[in-house]
């Protein structure tokens, strides 16, 4: 499961249904976040950690729980960062 989580994206998307009478131009894709805590279950011991300095900056000691967020509607955004 952990190796799958490396290639797996925590940003999901869908295209809202469109009616010919919708007043606004389509937003296109809607994005939503599915952060790693949804998949981890009870955290097993011995998982990889960030260095203390990195952990204080990122907000978590655990690499598996780190989930960078950026506005997915901005151009070039919407991808998960490492």
């Amino acid at each position: 499961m952990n190796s799958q989580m490396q290639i797996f994206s925590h940003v999901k998307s869908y295209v809202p249904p469109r009616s010919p009478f919708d007043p606004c131009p389509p937003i296109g894709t809607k994005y939503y976040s599915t952060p790693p805590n949804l998949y981890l279950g009870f955290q097993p011991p011995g998982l990889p950690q960030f260095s203390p300095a990195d952990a204080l900056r990122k907000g978590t000691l655990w690499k598996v729980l780190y989930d960078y967020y950026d506005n997915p509607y901005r151009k070039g955004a919407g991808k998960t960062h490492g």
Partner: protein
Amino acid sequence: MWIYEKKLQYPVKVSTCNPTLAKYLMEQYGGADGELAAALRYMNQRYTIPDKVIGLLNDIATEEFAHLEMIATMIYKLTKDATPQQLRDAGLAEHYVSHDSALFYNNAAGVPFTAAYIQAKGDPIADLYEDIAAEEKARATYQWIIDLSDDPDLNDSLRFLREREVVHSQRFREAVEMLKEDQNRKKVF
């Protein structure tokens, strides 16, 4: 009792004078899914939860107050030098009339905080599921604020706070697992 450290949990830097962002941040200050609601919810529920997860609620409630202090700092920095005209342009005229530039526990739409935002059912699973939902809602609120904000330094602090919501949700989910496991294990009395 608590020991107070006279520093923020994570540095708060604001790079642009943008009182409108202060209005958005009030959602996390006095909103239904804000840090005050979170802190008070956990601090109160911890009395009537199985003792193996009391410490978790106590620790997370304490951290939520540290987050509340960060949000307060952001709002203060964004409004302290704003003129009445600037506050009006930011949609904060009503706030100014009531409070000048004082902070108050309102949400982004100016609705004052109410204890009805939080719950304590006394059922451990119901309460922990509410706590998980509260963390996910706070995470989403941070996302929507980051989406609206173009202040890179402020967003850096908001990303830290969002990550903490992810970690808190994880720990509440583990608390549920601990309470479930206890039921499945064969115990001989």
